[in-house]
């Protein structure tokens, strides 16, 4: 935090949250229709309506994403934000929205996401996009070598972690096993059958050292959250989930440019968010940490300070991320087993909100007062950490 930064801890809250997923992985609606449905459900959850919305945040789809969506919805927002960092966009949206409402630039901000990669029969981003009038280092200096995107980039990070630190495939596999155990408690999860470390390691080798079960799903999904001032939040339908602090960091675009493949921008975003929120890792009751691949979680645990650098493998191998464990993580079943339409950060926030409210049904963790949503975008490129809290944390 800049020395003179004003602390807005607890001045904004998530008051509405909804996600739309299906155990089949498929949603038979267009993205625009899903966006409308997600916003409607999140506003209903808050007891608000579209006419209350004066802030809109949308990532991707087009360069003027939020403007297009505002026009589609027929609203005239006074705060508009198309920030796009891939999967961490929605944590960044909360960081921006909490500042916007705390400073009076708008009062009710909505962030929305919908994608249907499974119904489209295709896959999401393959890294070759971008402005044709600017150089594209991925197309020019990575794609000629056939790197699979995004998995190949994460595989390189896992390769380095294993070689430099001694992390094993079994340790990475345990992350998928713990996450699947949570998915077993979520009737909306795509995959619910328990798996073992052996199952992960004997699943198809995709890009060494990552196996098929080290990888997230590619399924349809949508979600929306509503952020407003703490003042307004008090009179709404559900208990406010306060925004205690947020932080962001970006260190590279493509994997060749990542300064150290064992250190993510979580070392920038995490400590900043925790300092603003006035917490330390041991205060966290629930961690929602982006799991595009098992290695993503392992790196984040180290970089957010839940364990020391190099100790992530030992930290996870006793199953402490799973049900009954010391650090409940990705309780919805994660991008690995619940839902991953491409930019999964939205779902981290929805689940954190439900858990703090005590609305997480069979997978509810007892006494969640502080939850962290940690988004990762690009290829470990841009990360954003959001600390959320119950009224007891104010």
């Amino acid at each position: 935090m800049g020395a003179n930064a004003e602390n807005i801890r607890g001045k904004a809250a998530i008051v509405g949250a909804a996600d739309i997923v299906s155990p089949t992985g498929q949603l038979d609606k267009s993205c625009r229709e899903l966006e409308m449905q997600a916003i409607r459900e999140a506003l209903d959850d808050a007891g608000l309506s579209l006419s209350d919305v004066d802030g809109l945040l949308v990532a991707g789809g087009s360069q003027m994403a939020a403007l297009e969506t505002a026009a589609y919805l027929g609203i005239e927002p006074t705060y508009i934000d198309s920030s796009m960092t891939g999967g961490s966009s929605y944590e960044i949206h909360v960081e921006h929205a909490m500042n916007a409402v705390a400073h009076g630039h708008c009062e009710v901000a909505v962030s929305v996401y919908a994608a249907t990669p499974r119904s489209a029969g295709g896959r999401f981003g393959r890294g070759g996009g971008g402005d044709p009038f600017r150089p594209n280092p991925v197309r020019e200096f990575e794609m000629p070598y056939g790197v699979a995107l995004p998995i190949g980039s994460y595989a390189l990070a896992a390769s380095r972690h294993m070689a430099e630190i001694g992390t094993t495939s079994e340790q990475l596999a345990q992350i998928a096993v713990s996450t699947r155990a949570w998915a077993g408690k979520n009737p909306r999860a795509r995959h619910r059958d328990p798996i073992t470390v052996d199952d992960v390691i004997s699943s198809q080798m995709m890009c060494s050292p990552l196996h098929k079960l080290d990888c997230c799903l590619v399924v349809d999904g949508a979600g929306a959250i509503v952020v407003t001032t703490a003042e307004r939040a008090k009179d709404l339908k559900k208990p406010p989930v306060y925004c205690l602090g947020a932080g962001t960091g970006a260190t590279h675009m493509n994997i060749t440019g990542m300064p150290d493949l064992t250190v993510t921008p979580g070392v920038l975003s995490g400590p900043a968010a925790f300092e603003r929120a006035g917490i330390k890792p041991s205060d966290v009751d629930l961690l929602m940490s982006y799991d595009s691949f098992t290695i993503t979680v392992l790196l984040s645990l180290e970089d957010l300070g839940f364990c020391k650098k190099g100790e992530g493998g030992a930290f996870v191998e006793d199953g402490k991320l799973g049900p009954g464990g010391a650090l409940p993580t990705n309780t919805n079943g994660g991008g690995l087993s619940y839902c991953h339409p491409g930019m999964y950060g939205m779902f981290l926030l929805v689940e954190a909100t439900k858990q703090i409210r005590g609305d997480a049904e069979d997978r509810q963790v007892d006494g969640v007062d502080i939850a962290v949503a940690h988004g990762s975008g690009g290829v470990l490129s841009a990360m954003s950490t959001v600390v959320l809290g119950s009224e007891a944390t104010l």
Partner: protein
Amino acid sequence: MSEIYEPPADTPETQPYWDGTREKKLMLQVCSSTGKYQYPPRAASIHDLGGPVEWREAKGTGTVYAASVHHVPGNKFMRDKVPYVVALIDLEEGMRVMSNVVNCPPDDVRVGMKVKVTWKDLPDGRALPMFEPA
């Protein structure tokens, strides 16, 4: 459709790099005022922001920083090439580049392995720098 992915070279800032490959020279960009390398090539220096850059031939030797054996192809041009090794190579000059490690069994490639440049010709006369055990 060509059988090999032909990297675009449609911006002036990377042209000297690709021109170098025609003579099997691995060219790196250097800041004229600080002497520091930068990769990938850019329109101007980032070390002396906006300042001039020049080009210097790399020795072509380096060390494997990270490596992944791809059992699934990264694009349609690689379908008949699996398994192959995608690696990040730390060049002796200090820059890190992505490449393939070839001329050895994929599973023999190790982090820390010393490698040297070898070339794969492209149809248009350019060539792709790849690496093999030194």
